[in-house]
């Protein structure tokens, strides 16, 4: 077990390194420098600025310097938000994204598992078909369509909930962003749960539990639920990736000062260091999560054996 964890940890390092180097090279292949603006700087000033950001060094040296910084959690200075480092910006913005993404994931798991179980129990009835049609619709409506439609409906027309972010004013501003992020995930989770629940319910040990006179609720609760939701663990990685991409859109629409918004601003402002830092941060997050899921799998599921 310990050896397996160590092996996986060591395996993740080349992946991360590859991601960082690729992203770095991509950004540095960009035509034009960060200081090419309408205002032409005097050559001496520009040379000084390039030196300050170490842009005058040869490429391998810049890459090594950057890698050294990343290892220590330092992504360098932002090109646009001159007074802040990229790490400071990420540290300030990430809590917002984490809160919304985490709540959305939690909500999606609860509702998705409930809906999937419900559909599996009533397999091939109209309830099942309705739930699955609804989930197919949920998968098909992109976040950037559902989010503004929710705003239009609940904020503009009905005026029940605030449309935007307004500091710390309770839970109300969280409802719509979390809902918009969670809806597609609910749909995916419901479909996955349904499929695996149907498999589990057909297995002999459930049949024998039923034969012994156990009620449906007890069978689900004590015997079927755990094995049925295990496959969801491996969906967690893609789900987090989807929520991260979704949060880029949701934060932009609701005006939440999270990481996604910084990412979009950075992209449009050509703030290369900020975009680079956020890409690496996201990538690390996803790689770490996939790793965690693999390890958790073994801890939770006794059928999995490590080689």
């Amino acid at each position, binding site marked *: 077990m310990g050896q397996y964890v160590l092996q996986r940890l060591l395996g993740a390092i080349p*992946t991360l390194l*590859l991601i960082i180097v690729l992203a770095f090279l991509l950004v540095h292949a960009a035509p034009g420098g960060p200081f090419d603006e309408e205002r032409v700087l005097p050559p001496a000033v520009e040379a000084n600025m390039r030196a300050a950001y170490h842009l005058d060094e040869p490429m391998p040296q810049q890459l090594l310097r950057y890698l050294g910084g990343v290892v220590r959690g330092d992504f360098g200075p932002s090109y646009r938000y001159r007074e802040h480092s990229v790490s400071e910006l990420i540290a300030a913005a990430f809590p917002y994204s984490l809160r919304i993404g985490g709540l959305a994931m939690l909500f999606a798991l609860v509702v998705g598992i409930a809906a999937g179980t419900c559909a599996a129990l009533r397999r091939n009835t109209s309830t099942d078909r309705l739930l699955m049609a609804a989930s197919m619709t949920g998968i*098909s409506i992109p976040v950037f369509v559902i989010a503004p439609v929710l705003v239009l409906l609940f904020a503009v027309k009905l005026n029940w909930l605030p449309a935007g972010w307004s500091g710390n004013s309770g839970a109300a501003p969280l409802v719509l962003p979390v809902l918009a992020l969670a809806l597609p995930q609910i749909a995916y989770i419901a479909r996955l749960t349904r499929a695996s629940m149907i498999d589990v319910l057909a297995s002999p040990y459930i049949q024998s539990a039923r034969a012994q006179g156990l009620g449906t609720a007890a069978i689900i609760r004590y015997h079927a639920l755990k094995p049925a939701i295990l496959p969801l663990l491996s969906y967690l990685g893609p789900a987090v990736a989807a929520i991260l991409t979704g949060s880029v859109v949701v934060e932009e629409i609701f005006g939440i000062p999270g990481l996604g918004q910084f990412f979009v601003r950075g992209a449009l402002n050509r703030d290369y260091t900020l975009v680079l830092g956020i890409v690496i941060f996201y990538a690390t997050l996803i790689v770490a999560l996939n790793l965690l899921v693999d390890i958790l799998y073994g801890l939770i599921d006794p059928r999995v054996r490590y080689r």
Partner: protein
Amino acid sequence: MRRAAGFMLRARRNRNVVVSFVLLLATAVCAIVLPWLSPNDYSTTSFQRVLEAPGWAGMHWFGLDELGRDQLMRTMLGIKVTLTVAVVASLVSLVIGVLYGAVAGYVGGRVDAFMMRIVDSLYAMPFIFFVILLMVVFERNFLLIFVAIGAINWLDMARIVRGQTLSLREREFVQAARLNGVSTPRIVLRHIAPNLIGIVIVYVTLTIPQAILVESFLSFLGLGVQEPQTSLGALVNTGVGHMERAPWMLLIPGGVLALILLCFNFLGDGLRDVFDVRQAP
């Protein structure tokens, strides 16, 4: 040939397949034919009639946008652009994925292990962010969008094709070809690849909606196609800015986009039943 006929028959009996196929066809036909019939075009502005609501007069069925351009024509252009990007991108991923998977599966052994390790590590990459990085760094051009989206989606295809090839290469006709001295590239192209068609068709139908999502996501962020060209994602993005005064600018392109995605998802799901393709390992 008889097998193909059997598939056609089963496909025609599957209601999801028929309905979604007809809807998609109708959407595509509208996108091509309506611009011929309409007196308007997608780029002419008329500043006296900004944000006019949908109506029958002058064939402004979907209203006018914030610059007084005909929204019907813009939506049809958006459909055309979105579908083109998605289909071409899926073809890119199809070619890469099928070749990669077929080679890995057919050659087998260490080569296979190594090639699949690459695929596994690429799976961990947050590609969408790389695509955004690509769009930021290089000036946005259409070709790049195709390539970038195609480059994301080939991984699934490669895995599925490899699994299928592994079982195909043990079959008698492949062995016969090998005994007759047919070269490896020729076996892969002429004997393995044609037998992958069923599974590939299913997964292409399922990659197209993913490609559509990526393209419209990029356009939504303002990183996709550039004005006066447009795509459904770009139209939704503009619609968001005017949704209080002109909700139809958001709802119509958003609805069309959702409908197209829904049709492709149903089509892929139905075709999976038709070809009786099991979920990939």
